[in-house]
């Protein structure tokens, strides 16, 4: 019997290797299938497309000073129009803050600066802050609409 072993060994080794490769391929295919299912599941899950920020302010109460809400800035622009700016920095999305003087908007993560109109003054952000739509609700108060 001991004499038979060397002649069987290469064949059984080849068989083992083939089975191992098939198992690895099958496993990868199976994992890929599950990854695809997971991605489809996540993609089809509902998500919040827009949010309304109820400011509790009547349009007349909004002045030149910047009012800061969790997602937006609200103030009156040069042309007396109500301006709502998205606070998310256009670089990587960190929440921008108003400077102490209120003349600039600063990103605390990577130092981008914007003017009051949301125009970039210093990078790394290159795009202006988004202007958000506003409306007045049935109580006569300003509502800011944040969209993703």
């Amino acid at each position: 019997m001991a004499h038979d072993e060397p002649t069987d060994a290469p064949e059984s080794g080849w068989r083992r290797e083939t089975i191992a490769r098939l198992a690895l391929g099958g496993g990868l295919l199976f994992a890929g299938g599950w990854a695809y299912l997971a991605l489809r599941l996540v993609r089809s899950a509902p998500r919040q497309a827009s949010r309304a920020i109820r400011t509790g302010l009547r349009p007349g109460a909004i002045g030149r000073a910047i009012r800061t809400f969790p997602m937006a800035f609200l103030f009156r622009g040069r042309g007396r129009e109500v301006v709502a700016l998205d606070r998310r920095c256009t670089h990587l999305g960190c929440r921008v803050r108003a400077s102490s003087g209120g003349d600039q908007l600063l990103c605390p993560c990577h130092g981008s600066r914007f003017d009051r109109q949301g125009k970039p003054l210093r990078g790394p952000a290159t795009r202006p802050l988004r202007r958000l739509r506003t409306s007045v609700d049935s109580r006569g108060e300003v509502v800011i609409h944040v969209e993703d």
Partner: protein
Amino acid sequence: MSRTDPAPIVGPLDRWLRPTGVTLGQVAFAALAVTVISGIVLGLVYDPSEPLASTEAIQGGVAYGFLVRAAHNLGGQLFVVALLLHTVDHVFSRSYRELSPGDWWRLVLVAVLGMGAMFSGFLLRGDGEARAAQTIAISAVRVVPGVGEDLSRMFFGDADGPLHAVYLHHLVTFSLVPWLVAIAHARRVWAGFVITAVVAAAITAVALVYHPGPALPPGMARGALWGPWYFIGAQELLHHVPVAWVTVAGVVGAVGLLGALGHVPREPGHRWRIPEAVVQRGWLLGLAVYLVVCLAAYVARGTA
């Protein structure tokens, strides 16, 4: 050394630790146990739909919450630092040549998942700094072609929403899975009673004097936002280069090159020797440069 050899493969740092009778891998494994056990206790109070309120309640509203939170935090830090040193030890001494590619990849995987555990734990604070870090992470993952948006939702959820996805991955993907992979890598279920007890006692002693302060809500966070200490360098790089570069450097440079070392042929004089030296030294140099950038950024930019 064969895969069934019971003796652990040690590098110079492990040899230096030899008088204590432990290896860095054992310290990491023990720290992981302390982190998981303290995490189970914290999980009884933590609510991912109200992350900041939960963190504040743990910190000041429940008995000894600050101590358990500090032990969890310190255990996680020790786990990653010991694991990183363990990895560096293997790379520096080239002892990865003695491991099978599978064993080497398991170590790399535990290191990556350990970083994931640290980062997801940081996000679970739900404070201003954590929310900023979550937003940046979402932007970094979104650059992956085709599936970036889906991956970001899968791992981080919505930027301002509840943290259920992050919590789930913190518990399972980044805690349970690395434990299972660590078992496969170390061929033992845990580090052992004595080493785990000693590490737990040391962590508890430090937790009595050091505990992370209360978190600030997103609107109240002041000064520059850095995120966790190990990403200060990445934060600094993001001042100067696109986020896609940082993502590629992290995944391909740090993880891919490290994993590739496990496939270096063992035969002396093999033509892989030169690329091996480049990859091995390049990885160590890259790590050293990254740590210097972290330190320099922290010193130069401060927190204001």
